[in-house]
């Protein structure tokens, strides 16, 4: 269910935080030489512009992590076993049964290994972008539900996209390495083992990415309201306390807006339907549209958004459908059964449940494996590069 999806181990206990950062580094660290400066960690945390978002997200995660049922600790990604793909070719290798047992565990560990750092970074960036752009674009619109709606659409898309693109390579390394270590006890040649690891990793990478993307999307939607609420309340006070004419003139005075042609200038009026469409188009940008597999799902989602409906419902519906498209497309490839994975509507009650029942912090899962970007920085091949 959607709720279960949210219950990924996002707790920010220090081990997972640092392993998350290790991932971020290995992801961006083409040059392995710079990969382990403790200073990078510190500077990242103090990173310009990011602390606000990080601390607020952290607070939320910590609050959420107080009351995670202990029983959930061993199965943070429920039913992953029914979604993993065990390639039929493995049967020919006599490894089918073994993989059926180890792949869900390896996936679970690999995802937990990557998820918190990547989600945190993606959400923090997407939140900041969304806050700045939505507040700018809707500066003259007093309909807050429209503003929240636009912000939800944008932040979900941006955070999900960033998380997906960022997690792919670290997750690939992590899944492979989890599989390798879980197969060590088997008496098979290393060549065969590598072959099997590669096969299974490729088959299941998209599933892992989709789960992490979903986690980022969920977290982003939870986070954005708090980020823009303060600004909106200031605006409200301003509107109520000051003559609106003065309010508008102060907006013009603040920026270069006055120099913008009338047709492009934000107007002291509700944003039009056609303008609103730009933000609604964020729903059309799911990762999984890449091969057109889920176009039906996402189009349906777009058409269901009322331009000024209740925010959580409008968004929840869109998101649920979008992800149904997303995950079913990745599972269709695998030829598995139809699923009810993340297809449920993500409404406000699931957010509430998350806050009251989500992850337990103290017990870090201790998966501190951090794959190095050991296959990255290859020697420059100038001949080829120049050609």
């Amino acid at each position, binding site marked *: 269910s959607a709720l279960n999806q949210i219950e990924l181990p996002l707790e920010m206990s220090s081990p997972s935080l640092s392993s998350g950062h290790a991932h971020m580094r290995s992801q961006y660290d083409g*040059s392995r*030489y710079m990969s382990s400066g403790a200073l990078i960690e510190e500077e990242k945390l103090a990173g*310009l*512009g990011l602390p606000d978002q990080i601390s607020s997200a952290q607070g939320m995660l910590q609050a959420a992590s107080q009351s995670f049922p202990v029983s959930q600790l061993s199965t943070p990604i429920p039913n992953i076993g029914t979604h993993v793909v065990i390639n039929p070719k493995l049967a020919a290798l006599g490894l089918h049964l073994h993989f059926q047992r180890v792949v869900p565990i390896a996936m679970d560990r690999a995802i937990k290994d990557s998820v918190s750092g990547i989600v945190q970074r993606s959400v923090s960036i997407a939140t900041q972008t969304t806050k*700045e752009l939505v507040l700018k674009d809707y500066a003259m619109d007093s309909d807050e539900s429209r503003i929240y709606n636009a912000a939800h659409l944008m932040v979900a898309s941006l955070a999900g996209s*960033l998380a997906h693109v960022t997690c792919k390579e670290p997750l690939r390394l992590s899944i492979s390495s989890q599989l390798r270590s879980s197969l060590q006890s088997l008496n098979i040649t290393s060549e065969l083992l590598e072959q099997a690891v590669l096969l299974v990793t490729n088959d299941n990478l998209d599933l892992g990415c989709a789960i992490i993307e979903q986690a980022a999307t969920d977290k982003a939607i939870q986070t954005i309201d708090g980020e823009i609420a303060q600004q909106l309340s200031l605006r409200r006070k301003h509107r109520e306390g000051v003559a609106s004419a003065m309010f508008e003139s102060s907006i013009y005075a603040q920026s270069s807006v006055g120099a913008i042609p009338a047709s492009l*200038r934000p107007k002291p009026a509700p944003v039009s339907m056609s303008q609103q469409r*730009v933000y609604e188009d964020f729903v059309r940008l799911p990762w999984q549209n890449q091969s057109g597999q889920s176009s039906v799902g996402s189009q349906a989602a777009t058409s269901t958004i009322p331009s000024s409906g209740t925010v959580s419902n409008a968004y929840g519906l869109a998101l649920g459908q979008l992800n149904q498209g997303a995950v079913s497309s990745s599972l269709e490839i695998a030829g598995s059964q139809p699923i009810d994975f993340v297809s449920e509507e993500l409404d406000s009650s699931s957010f509430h449940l998350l806050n009251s029942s989500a992850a337990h912090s103290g017990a870090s899962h201790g998966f501190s494996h951090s794959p190095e970007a050991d296959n*990255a920085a290859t020697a420059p091949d100038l001949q080829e590069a120049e050609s």
Partner: protein
Amino acid sequence: MANLSHSLSINSPFGAAKDRKMASAETLVLDLSNPDLRENALIELSKKRELFQDLAPLLWNSFGTIAALLQEIVSIYPVLSPPNLSPGQSNRVCNALALLQCVASHPETRMLFLNAHIPLYLYPFLNTTSKSRPFEYLRLTSLGVIGALVKVDDTEVISFLLSTEIIPLCLRTMEMGSELSKTVATFIVQKILLDDVGLDYICTTAERFFAVGRVLNNMVAALAEQPSSRLLKHIIRCYLRLSDNPRACEALRSCLPDMLRDATFSGCLREDPTTRRWLQQLLLNVGGGNRVAALQAGGVFDHLMVN
């Protein structure tokens, strides 16, 4: 429409064409928000962006334009890995990036652009490794946006880029990019180094210094095979700036490539007195306290002057 003529100053010598151009800029910016008209608007606007002087504030302040450009960016994330970017997709997103470069360059919009964290959406592009032309073009254009940010010397910009770990991404391009990409990436590293915050950052740990030093050395070695004066210029400026830091200067004594000490690049530098002077200063800095090196430096300098 009355204030249009004030709002957009167009570098057009033809007064009559002026109004039409301004109107077309305005229309094209509006078109960016419409998915059906966006592709053409991207082409036209990026082609004419030099003509529209105040395009950046227009892009930033108009409703939804930046959001639309961000959609263009994230919509190609799925084809980055496995590498599957078509030339058409690459062109389209590069047109969007060209408009963002306007926004990054303009003094009125630069900090807004940074504050919205938009450069970070380009990092996945810089993290790609495919050497095909669409990817090469994508990396080059993305570096152009970052280059536009660092062009003006602003510590805040440098701090932002450092905190988001731009250096490893630049180093990656300096190792595997085309000559042009390498030049832009090296330019970015040079601008970062020229800021005190940047120099401190890179010289704070030996790892960081050697990561940069090693990539610079590799580029020097590669240049001996395929010379490029403009790339060499930025490399030498990077070394020279590194030599301003005492510890880095000490390290350079042993790791500065010999090819910079001998006559390997004298032909390359013949037309470029500024870079020759930088190299001379570098060799003096590095050779400081070391008679032999100082003499060598003098020797190289003489040699260069003779040429």
